[in-house]
């Protein structure tokens, strides 16, 4: 009984920490201005749409991997799926939640585009260093 209670509390607490954590990651990237190249390649609109998320992630996987942002991209990916599920569920029940979910999905897409921008810049620096060497 106590173990079940602890399990229930832990899952609720986990969500209470996981959602703000993902939102803090997204908020940290919201001030980043995307380079024109990344904007062209991704074709992002303003504000970004959640429909582009998977496409941007695919582009992200084409770039050389960076260990320090891998966990964050995965966390935001899980958060995206959670919000997308909420959007599907709330479609007919609560239209106000749907508006919020669409905005949130767009912010996830922008986060992915910022990560792509950083990876492109990182690859470019790496290439420049190799040419210099």
């Amino acid at each position, binding site marked *: 009984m106590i*173990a*079940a209670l*602890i*399990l229930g*509390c*832990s*899952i609720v*607490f*986990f*969500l*209470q*920490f*996981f*959602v*703000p*954590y993902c*939102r*803090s*990651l997204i*908020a*940290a990237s919201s001030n980043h201005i995307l380079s024109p190249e990344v904007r062209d390649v991704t074709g992002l609109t303003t504000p970004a749409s959640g429909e582009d998320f998977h496409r941007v992630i695919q582009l992200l996987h084409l770039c050389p991997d960076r*260990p*320090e*942002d*891998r*966990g*964050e991209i995965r966390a935001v990916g899980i958060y995206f799926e959670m919000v997308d599920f909420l959007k599907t569920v709330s479609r007919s029940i609560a239209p*106000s*939640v749907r508006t*919020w979910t669409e905005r949130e999905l767009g912010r996830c897409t922008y986060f992915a585009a910022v990560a792509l921008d950083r990876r492109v810049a990182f690859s470019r620096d790496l290439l420049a260093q190799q040419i210099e060497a």
Partner: protein
Amino acid sequence: MPGSASYAILFLGTLLEALVVVCAIRRKVFRKYFVLNLYMALCLLVSWGRHYILAREGLASLNYRYFYFYTDALLTIVLYFSLISLYVSVFEEMKVGRYLRLGAVLLLAGTSWFTYAVVSQSSHKILTYFAFELSQNLYFVGLVLTYVLWAAVLKMRQTPALLVQLVLSLGIYFSFFAACYALSNLHPTLYSRVSVLFPVVGCLLPLSWVYAFWRVPNEARLSPARLAMAGVSR
């Protein structure tokens, strides 16, 4: 002996633990978050010790098991004090650090006493079982304390983004382990399956701290209320 994937995860975890300390020194926040860095440095030492014993005596040896559970209890206690150090940082202006530390020691003593009371009735290998149970109980106590800390942070208008990310990642870590232990208490046969996830999740805490120390600027501030689930309608 563990497979190459287990070794790779062990190596990755050790590398990330070292990277946390390096990033904290580089960002000049090593002293500010001293207990957190002490925890990571201890993790590094323990990882090395576990690897040494694993290579010499194998996964099934008693020495490895004892070393694993005792060091796990030790690390959980240090992690508990890392959380208390975050409390001290959050309530720095109120000058209540002394009371917080005293309260933390009393709570730890209470948890240890409770654990001993439970263990002494149900096992003959008291010390080993005590170390294992204490870790489990401290994960749950840590989870509740992190939740209380997060609730306090939510009341603040502006909080350093670095502190917010450290608290939230610690909360995720504690809640995951507390859930895993509760699940394995509900269905003891699941422990062997659930414990496979421990090294992977163990990597997530140093990974998120590396990100926080590396990426989040010192001066960056967040409004925590806007991050919470309650902020959904905003």
